[in-house]
């Protein structure tokens, strides 16, 4: 047997190379041959992607669920936040390959996934999810739904804004926190606090080099019923409300009552513990638990109330983030996935277990109304953070349309704020520039 000369040899090599390459690449995306559980049957195994605390909550609901459906196996995976967003993106970009059966999705990513990857999330109306709508705050429900009413996620965590403050600092400065109704009054009080105690009214990451530092602006803008985008997805960040918020931020900064603290978790804890003191700390409702757990020595020194309004008598409630449980259409076991989501979030029994296990603030109204949920907390001087959040969610909180371009808008805003805080730029000009940039990048229109 003789080997034929070059050309054929090369052809063999080329063929071999092609086959091996194909095989190697195929290895990267393993085909999923698992047989789907038949429509309507509950059983088999489901996988959930989430992260630490919400994962603990869902774990806690599994034993009770398995009593109802003994042959269901549930694997809760702590993918990590923010790693989970890239992982979901990758899976969706690959047409749903490798995605789990249930995904925990942040409110700020929801619009992105729905718009960029249409058809990849199950419209949960297929399973009758619309009957749960009345059980959740309308703002939170709508942010998890499409414009046509399709339900893409059931609210898991619904964060109202907690306006936390250092009661000892206000006392030392001789200011009655309850007398403060608007942000203008608050800023005036901040001057007194700074004079008498040396404590800044609040801290900001002015250069925003560690993280985006747009939380305060988003809160103040939401209190004026506005956001980066309106319900049509047009850009509103440089509208009257947005500019007014940035003017308030600039005013406080120019008065010298704002500290500059870089936005890291360590620095957040330092502020909670009073090492880098701050008089107020507006944050998501989850902060209540963090303060209590991470700064136990500060018991009695933190208080919580509704945020002040922008105009006298204005809105004093704003949703500050939240998460959903969604089911990808790629799931082979959608029915089982739905049954678990429905049990964990749509029943009082499941909600109680999840809340005890993870401590995420729920949106389910029967849970909020349940006995003992709004019990006063000793740590917060006998105040009840939960009662405050419930009061906020009962207000008609503005729906925040995050769209698929939230990340760009957030970045453009943060840069504008940095220009205002560090170089004294004019708020209106800085925001106009930011809005134009977002429009140029995304092709969205500026709202009139």
């Amino acid at each position, binding site marked *: *047997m*003789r*080997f*034929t*000369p*070059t050309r054929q*040899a*090369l052809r*063999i*090599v080329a063929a*071999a*190379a*092609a086959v*091996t*390459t194909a095989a*190697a*690449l195929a290895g990267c995306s393993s085909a999923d041959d698992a047989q789907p559980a038949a429509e309507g049957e509950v059983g088999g195994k489901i996988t959930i992607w989430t992260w630490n605390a919400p994962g603990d909550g869902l774990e806690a609901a599994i034993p009770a669920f398995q009593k109802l459906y003994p042959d269901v196996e549930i694997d809760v995976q702590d993918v990590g936040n923010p790693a989970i967003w*890239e992982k979901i*993106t990758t899976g969706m*970009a690959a047409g749903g390959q490798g995605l789990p059966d249930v995904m925990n999705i942040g409110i700020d990513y929801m619009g*992105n996934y729905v*718009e*960029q*990857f*249409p*058809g990849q999330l199950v419209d949960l109306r297929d399973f009758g999810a619309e009957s749960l709508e009345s059980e959740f705050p309308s703002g939170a429900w709508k942010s998890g739904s499409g414009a046509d009413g399709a339900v893409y996620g059931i609210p898991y965590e619904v964060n109202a804004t907690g306006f936390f403050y250092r009661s000892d600092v206000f006392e030392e400065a001789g200011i009655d926190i309850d007398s403060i109704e608007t942000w203008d009054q608050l800023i005036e009080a901040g001057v007194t606090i700074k004079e008498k105690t040396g404590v800044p009214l609040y801290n900001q990451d*002015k*250069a*925003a*080099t*560690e*993280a985006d530092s747009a939380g305060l602006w988003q809160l103040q803008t939401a209190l004026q019923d506005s956001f980066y985008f309106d319900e049509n997805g047009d850009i509103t960040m440089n509208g009257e409300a947005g500019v007014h918020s940035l003017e308030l931020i600039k005013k406080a900064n120019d008065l010298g009552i704002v500290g*500059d603290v*870089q936005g890291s978790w360590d620095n957040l804890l330092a502020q909670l513990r009073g090492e880098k003191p701050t008089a107020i700390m507006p944050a998501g409702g989850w902060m209540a638990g963090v303060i209590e757990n991470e700064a136990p020595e500060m018991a009695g020194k933190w208080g919580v109330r509704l945020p002040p309004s922008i105009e006298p008598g204005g809105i004093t409630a704003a949703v500050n983030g939240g998460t959903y449980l969604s089911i990808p259409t790629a799931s082979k076991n959608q029915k089982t996935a739905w049954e678990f989501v429905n049990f964990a979030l749509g029943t009082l029994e499941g909600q109680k277990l999840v809340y005890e296990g993870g401590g995420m603030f729920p949106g389910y109204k029967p849970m909020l109304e349940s006995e003992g949920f709004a019990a006063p907390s000793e740590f917060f001087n006998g105040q009840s953070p939960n009662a405050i959040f419930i009061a906020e969610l009962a207000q008609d909180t503005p729906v925040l349309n995050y769209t*698929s*371009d939230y*990340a*760009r808008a957030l*970045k453009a805003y*943060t*840069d504008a704020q*940095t*220009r205002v805080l*560090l*170089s004294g730029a004019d708020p209106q000009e800085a925001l106009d520039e930011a809005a134009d*940039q977002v429009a*140029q*990048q995304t092709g969205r229109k500026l709202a009139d």
Partner: protein
Amino acid sequence: MNVLSSTAGSTTGPTAEAPPLEAAPRPPRRRRRSSIGHPRLTPYLFLLPTIVLFLGFKLYPYLSALWTSLTSNIGGVITFVGLDNYARLLQDPLFYTALGNTALILVVQVPLMLALGIVLSVAFNSLLLKGRAFFRMAYFVPIVMGLVAYGILFSALFDSSAGIVNELLGYLGIGPIPWLVDPFWAKISIVLAMTWHYTGQNAIIYLAQLQSIPSELYEAAQVDGANGWQRFRNITLPGLRPALLLTVILSTIGTLQLFDEPYVLTNGGPDNATLTVGMYLYQNGFKYFDFGYASAIGYALTVIIAVVSLIQFRLFRERTPKPISPKKPMSSKEKTR
């Protein structure tokens, strides 16, 4: 292969048995015969892993990125949009900001680092320096340092309120410098961090080149009465030219692709003061999921790098003859040897 050649041997064996004289032509024949089949294929088989890896992990991504740069995600559908992404790039003020930042860092940092590298390499090569091995290693170590550790280290050093650098400067009466949080100082911080990271590597490359310069040249110059500076100017620098070309081009490419330092230290901020082309590409791809645009940025960067490298090749080539010309007799002598 062994099997084939041995059967070939056994078939030719009996026919060419008797005369010992024929033993001589045998080996060449055998060699030639086996070279007809096997060895022609063998090298390609040995190359197969490289070819497969090249096709799968180089060529495919190149072509795929090129295709991606011509597409856009419109309403969840990947759509061919021709050169739209490139047109958008040309009108994107942030892209120009990124280019400007990158160019500024390039112009300031690369000469600074390479000059330092030369000084260090001369010191490493000097017999006067005690513990040379230790210093060489100490300066080379930063290049081994991982991105995360590097980021944490420099964040701790440059923290404006509690950083070690400001603490030390404070003792000298120099007020706290807003290292990472001021648009100007953030750029300086990036330059300093890069210089710390890569100078040692360049110094080692220069050192290797220095050791190839014949010591007779220095001796001859000394006999002729040349002082230290003259010897450095007329022997060391011209001798380093090949290494200089290499490091200038490598550092230029590295800086044009700059990503690590702004990513770990400033996140491209404040207000995009340290946004580099690499950072901007990353943001578009992985933060905004705009892969088409990110790929277009990647290809634009590739073109820029190619052009800049070509220019550098030209510049260095043109200059090469001048300083070497006085030593021409010597090099020709070497050739004749």
